[in-house]
């Protein structure tokens, strides 16, 4: 029934985690070896993930019963179409880690590299586990691995302010994790099970009720915090701007998506059970999404610091995804799900390019970085491609998803939100135009900027690769759709407004 690759499902989680546990031992003589070790581990993980995806394409979703216990009695791993996200996730890590090899030279002394790479591996393993687990409590434990490693990764780069940003992130993140644990416990009390599929079945028997609704609300708030939606986004800008750039790429591109994937999982449970009328909630999501888009873009306009600007742009883009999910029409949901991946790619491009520029020039604000394009043409071109992508102009990856979400808005007879989306894109356009204008059309004000050299190849390679992917996926926008469409079409009949 299942092919040989299905056996790899637990190992794709265990591999990065065990690799992390081994990192300090492997790098005990040469701390710099930790970077290569982490890269190797992630490469093998990506191969396993590719195998899993090939299995998914050949035979459809499959499960793995850990310890051989039948589903509800042990922990079940489930690889469905949303889980296919682990492949791009692993691949992005494979691209980002080489960038960090040289980048870290100015961030930390060599002896702190092994724990740093251990944290990166733990983060990757935690997110992979989060995407494939089919058990609610297991989901919580993976969330904690991801969150704890993220808090630490924010703080590794600097003193004082970095620690403060990380601590703020930790407090808010810990409360959101607690809410998640509380919701899990409530569903467990109501149904007597922790397996997602079983909980969904038994919730249908239990029926609605305040407790069921409160559990849903607790999950919703918890994942909104993780995804940095507008009213609870306060932790994001500082944390993402102050982290070292490869970490920013991971956090902004992938870690916030934990909230989205978690939301999708909870939707699967509740829609399957048909116990709640979620129309009102969908409407709330649409509004929050629209507000996030506009507010994120609005704050971004006033930022002079390029990384802070990119961080606010993440809030705006998460708004797009949530808006799409809330619209609940096929096009919108497909567009939103694809944007989960495309935004990760684009944000990684932008943060790595920004990191390169900061690394070479020593400046991080738009006013200081005027005219940097002449000194660093390739990196600046990558930055420009990323900017065009994220605005959503046609030949790039960002266009496909935003187009789908806009179509979805009209499909769902919510035309005003379609306009909100276009309006947000306009805002985003303004601030990226500001950036490109400063980089390309203004005279350098600092000698360091005018005389900066291009980055070494280990840093430029990943940036160029990611930027070209942004272009390629703009042309071949259909590839991610093949994964998302079946999953969305499974879910949608139950979705309805």
């Amino acid at each position, binding site marked *: 029934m299942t092919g040989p690759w299905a056996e790899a499902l637990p190992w794709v989680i265990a591999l990065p985690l065990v690799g992390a546990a*081994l990192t300090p031992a492997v790098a005990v003589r040469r701390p710099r070896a930790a970077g290569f070790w982490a890269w190797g581990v992630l490469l093998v993980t990506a191969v396993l993930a590719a195998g899993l995806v090939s299995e998914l394409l050949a035979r459809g979703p499959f499960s793995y019963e850990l310890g051989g216990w039948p589903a509800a009695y042990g922990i079940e791993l489930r690889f469905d179409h949303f889980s296919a996200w682990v492949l791009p996730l692993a691949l992005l890590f494979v691209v980002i880690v080489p960038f960090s090899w040289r980048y870290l030279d*100015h961030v930390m002394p060599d002896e702190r590299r092994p724990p740093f790479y251990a944290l990166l591996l733990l983060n990757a393993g935690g997110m992979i586990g989060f995407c494939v687990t089919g058990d609610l409590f297991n989901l919580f434990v993976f969330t904690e691995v991801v969150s704890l490693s993220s808090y630490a990764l924010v703080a590794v780069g600097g003193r004082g302010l*970095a620690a403060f940003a990380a601590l*703020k992130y930790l407090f808010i993140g810990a409360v959101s994790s607690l809410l998640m644990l509380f919701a899990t416990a409530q569903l467990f009390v109501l149904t007597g099970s922790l397996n997602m599929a079983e909980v969904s079945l038994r919730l249908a028997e239990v029926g609605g009720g305040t407790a069921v609704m409160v559990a849903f609300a*607790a999950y919703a708030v918890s994942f909104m915090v993780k995804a940095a939606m507008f009213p609870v986004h306060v932790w994001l800008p500082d944390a993402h701007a102050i982290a070292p750039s490869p970490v920013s790429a991971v956090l902004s591109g992938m870690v916030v998506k934990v909230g989205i994937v978690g939301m999708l999982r909870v939707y699967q449970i509740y829609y399957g059970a048909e116990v709640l009328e979620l129309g009102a909630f969908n409407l709330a999501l649409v509004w929050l999404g629209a507000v996030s888009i506009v507010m994120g873009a609005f704050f971004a306009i006033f930022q002079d610091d390029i990384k802070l600007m990119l961080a606010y742009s993440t809030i705006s883009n998460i708004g797009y995804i949530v808006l799409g999910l809330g619209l609940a029409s096929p096009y919108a949901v497909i567009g939103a799900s694809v944007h989960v991946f495309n935004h990760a790619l684009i944000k990684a491009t932008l943060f790595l390019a920004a990191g390169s520029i900061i690394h070479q020039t020593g400046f991080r604000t738009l006013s200081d970085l005027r005219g940097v394009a002449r000194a660093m043409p390739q990196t600046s071109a990558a930055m420009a491609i990323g900017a065009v992508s994220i605005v959503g102009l046609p030949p790039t990856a960002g266009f496909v998803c935003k187009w789908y979400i806009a179509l979805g808005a009209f499909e769902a007879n919510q035309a005003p939100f379609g306009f909100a989306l276009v309006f947000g894109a306009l805002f985003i356009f303004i601030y990226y135009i500001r950036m490109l204008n400063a980089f390309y059309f203004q005279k350098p004000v600092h000698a360091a900027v005018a005389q900066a050299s291009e980055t070494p190849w280990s840093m430029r390679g990943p940036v160029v690769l990611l930027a070209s992917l942004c272009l390629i996926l703009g042309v071949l926008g259909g590839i991610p759709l093949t994964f998302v469409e079946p999953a969305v079409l499974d879910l949608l009949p139950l979705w309805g407004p």
Partner: protein
Amino acid sequence: MRPWPLLLVLLVALPLVAGVATLPPHDAPDAPIHTQVGARYLERGVAETGMKNLVTAVLLNYRGFDTFIEVVVIFTALAAVLALPKGSAPVPKGSAPVPKGSAPVPKGSAPVPKGGPQAPEPAAGSAARAARAREEERPEVASDVPVSPVVRFVVRLLAPFIAMFAVAMLFRGHITPGGGFQAAAVFAAVFIALGLALGQARAARLVPVDWRPWLQGVAPLAFALVAWIGWRLTGAFLGYPSDDHTAQEAMGFVLEVAIAVGGGVILARVFLEMET
């Protein structure tokens, strides 16, 4: 006193009370929590896992994967503490003037606007404060404070017994309450007590430097090993051979010891890192 925290708390409290008020009564034996999965564990747990303490059975066998990830979480905590910058000396080796990645901003650039206290790191600006901070770091804590000879004697006398208690808890974890994590915490407590009484340096020698990188990761590694053995034996990741009680006990024992040793070393290391 500002009123908004109270308002927020009330806003959270009302739905929570509403949520817990409509749950099934918690001490009724026919609540779902007792009739579903839990019922099978109570009925067949001992026969299926060979462990009389069903909590241990759930932790190591039925939901062993959770425990695997849980030991990964404490390992993450250690990695986090180790990855943080130490003290307040300048970080980078080599070219100092180049700003470190994201943290400090060189002179001349405006403070990062809006969105929180995003000022440039006061690298040179608040030299006085940095100096004071460094000053405050010097005075060593507890370990340099003279410890009364009575305390030292008592700690040295009791340490082996407390450690024995941890070992007993570890070995009997499948029959009585207690197990790997509790033993780990007690091991760490012995270590901390010795550190306070005898000084860091002597306590630190309890865990040889060469072994540390291996010992601190031993719990996840042991889980991976046992998972692999289970995979070979039963075809399922972390599977226990259901008919072979010796193998079951051996696998459970390896996990418990690894959790105790790995967890204890990690907690002790965190303690050392925070002290110095």
